[in-house]
């Protein structure tokens, strides 16, 4: 649904590149996360996706339309939410929606009402935005992004500033949106937990370059790291000796064991028991997105 190819952008000749040859693609119906610390280049990438920032080279396709060559046609399929969305404070939520949707060709009253009810702003929509809480503004931002019905939702730090309840609510909204409207979602965030819980796949951006792209769910099940607890604890020494005969390496700590991909954990456990090690616990350690993020953040950036 979204194909980003070779994006390069430098805002200032003397500054480092904001984006350096970034490519990724988002499949239809997928929730895809752009992860990176502040200033990594996520917002620049989203700016290019929305035709607000001109890339030095590269192209973004939304469906079969190029944002750079057919911006309006491409953006007809897109709804967007920005970090700390700014509305016209002196207008009501409803009037803001009318002003904004007029630039998308207008939306009928019924669809607007449905959307307003869907985001849970029904009672306050006729009130001035200046009186809205941050959470209500975020709901209004979601409403404007959903009008008129887009195929793609682009979210820039969508939960920034929301309270924990608001974050959970927003997360649930995203899943509902995918289920109810079949939306493809691309979001940027520096909140690892958020991305891990919401996204099917992520790209990690560091210093303007993509340093990782892959699944988040696959990631947590790919771990081959086990924590062993013995009784008495001194049996760990014996366990290490057995492990070394099976080419099992240390997981960084005394009680962690990193198994090679071709070794089944039950074989290691069997070897331990037959070697006289009294096993109290043998737990598979799940590698989190945070582990991955930290590991790639410390690696030099490389292309794709």
């Amino acid at each position: 649904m979204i194909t980003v190819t070779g994006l390069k952008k430098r805002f200032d000749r003397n500054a480092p590149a904001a984006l350096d040859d970034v490519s990724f693609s988002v499949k239809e119906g997928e929730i895809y996360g752009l992860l990176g610390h502040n200033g990594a280049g996520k917002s620049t990438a989203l700016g290019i996706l929305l035709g607000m920032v001109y890339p030095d080279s590269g192209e973004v396709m939304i469906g079969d339309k190029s944002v750079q060559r057919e911006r309006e046609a491409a953006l007809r399929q897109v709804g967007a939410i920005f970090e700390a969305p700014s509305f016209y404070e002196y207008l009501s939520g409803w009037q803001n929606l009318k002003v904004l949707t007029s630039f998308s060709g207008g939306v009928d009253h019924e669809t607007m009402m449905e959307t307003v009810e869907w985001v849970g702003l029904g009672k306050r929509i006729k009130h001035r935005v200046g009186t809205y809480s941050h959470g209500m503004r975020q709901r209004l931002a979601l409403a404007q992004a959903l009008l008129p019905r887009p195929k793609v939702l682009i979210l820039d730090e969508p939960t920034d500033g929301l309270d924990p309840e608001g974050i959970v609510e927003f997360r649930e909204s995203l899943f509902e949106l995918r289920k109810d409207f079949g939306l493809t979602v691309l979001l940027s965030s520096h909140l690892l937990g958020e991305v891990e819980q919401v996204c099917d796949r992520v790209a990690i951006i560091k210093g303007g370059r993509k340093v990782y792209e892959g699944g988040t769910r696959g990631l947590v099940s790919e771990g081959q790291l086990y924590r062993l607890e013995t009784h008495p604890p001194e049996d760990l020494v014996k366990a290490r000796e057995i492990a070394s005969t099976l080419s099992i390496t240390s997981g960084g700590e005394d009680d962690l064991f990193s198994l090679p991909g071709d070794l089944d954990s039950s074989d290691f456990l069997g070897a331990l028991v037959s070697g006289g090690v009294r096993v109290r616990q043998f737990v598979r350690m799940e590698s989190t997105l945070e582990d991955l993020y930290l590991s790639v953040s410390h690696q030099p950036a490389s292309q794709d």
Partner: protein
Amino acid sequence: MMLFFKQLGWELFRMFARKRTYIGFGVFLAVELLIYVLLTLDRSERGMEKWIERVAGGFEHYFSALTLGFLIVSFTMLILGAVFVALVTGDIVAKETEDGNLRLLLARPVSRFRLLAIKFLACQIYALGLFWFVGLTAFGVGLLERGWGGGMFVWTPEMPRISIFEWNEGLARYFLAITAFVIAYLPITGIAFALSCLKIKPAAATIVTIAYILADWILSKIPLPIFEDYQHWFITPKMQSWALLMYQDIPWPRVLESWAWLIGFGATGFVIGWVIFERRDVKS
């Protein structure tokens, strides 16, 4: 085309829903009332009476609601009109960029040209609204003081001689001149709009515009031979074209020439603003 006007309608709605849009209207009204009080002071009225009697005769006939309204308009419009038109136009893009509203608009399937055209046109409509408000209220003040009917006595420093009209023609000339202020002020909207499209604070766009217009006006007034060769570079003399419509016989070739310059200047401001904005990266 219908969609364009619908979008323009919402832009105007947004503009007129904002309290600061009305500052100009309020200030004009206050200044008009002040000028009215000053003009109707015994001493001022006696001075006017002597003058009108000397050059036109029939003070009671010619010191009408139209004459009083015209005096109020010509005193207030030059500086105040420039300030408020520059204020609103200088805000139109820069303020929205500063507030972040523009990003929500640009995420929509609308071209930057269309967006700017809507905003520029909204500024012209605001200016027309402001000038008609000033014209109508000044006329209203005149009606309160002098009542309906009579003649019209007109003089501005730019006019070589006074003009006198009967009521109906005076009324038509008065509102024609009020409307023509929109064309006269196109350089102001053009400069303020072009500046507003830069990465600039809204107040800076307004201040630079006013500074340019004042500098142009001052330089065009310096009675030195050296400036005579450069008179065609000054735009403020052409902005006085509205006063040409109050001449006894309207010098249409001069009016049209001035309007061509003014429209050209305003359009150039819009095009410069558009080119700047079209090339800009809009980012938080």
